[in-house]
């Protein structure tokens, strides 16, 4: 069965410090992995994805994520956090071969402290 775990409900980081939002996944085949961000009263905005190739994926707003197959992880990172990065972050996975539906994690609320 496909699933995503985001072990931290809340992450706090000081502005200018690096941030990491964790995600681990489980799929029966090869994973497509995605990160989305949700600002208050807004929909889910696509940040980045991993399909194949380079394990380090770069996305919007300076975010990047590293795919680690052995640890089944896809952690979201940014070298220097901004206050405007404060939002809810969702990791999602879909199996390469089976279907189109995404499986989402429970979300991690990121607060960047000025």
């Amino acid at each position, binding site marked *: 069965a496909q699933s995503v775990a985001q072990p931290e409900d809340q992450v706090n980081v000081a502005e200018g410090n690096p941030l990491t939002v964790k995600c681990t996944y489980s799929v029966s085949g090869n994973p497509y992995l*995605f990160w*989305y961000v949700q600002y208050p009263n807004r*929909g*889910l905005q*696509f940040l980045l994805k991993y399909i194949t190739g380079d394990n380090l994926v770069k996305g919007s707003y300076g975010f990047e994520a590293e795919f680690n197959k052995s640890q089944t992880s896809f952690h979201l990172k940014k070298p220097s956090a901004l206050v405007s990065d404060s939002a809810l972050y969702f990791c999602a996975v879909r199996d390469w071969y089976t*279907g189109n*539906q995404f499986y*989402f*994690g*429970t979300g991690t609320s990121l607060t960047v402290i000025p």
Partner: protein
Amino acid sequence: EPEVTQTPSHQVTQMGQEVILRCVPISNHLYFYWYRQILGQKVEFLVSFYNNEISEKSEIFDDQFSVERPDGSNFTLKIRSTKLEDSAMYFCASSEPKETQYFGPGTRLLVL
């Protein structure tokens, strides 16, 4: 940049009433989806739609739910007889085949 739009942004209804949530997907996308997010919980898949028929659906998507593409632009989710537990944020998404799904801003449904 093209985006998915949804109407209404908020809907309040009485238990047992029918509601229709509307979505306009990105114009060149062929796959359409509905997801829901109950307050404080994860985003859950409801249904995917391709070539004028349902391609996948979850256990949540029971006989009370239906989807339709009534014309070339709209994609709707109908709940025939709403229950209290249907209260949630409903997201529409669209994509090209096997590609990134782009989400709308959501419709917040409150069933009283």
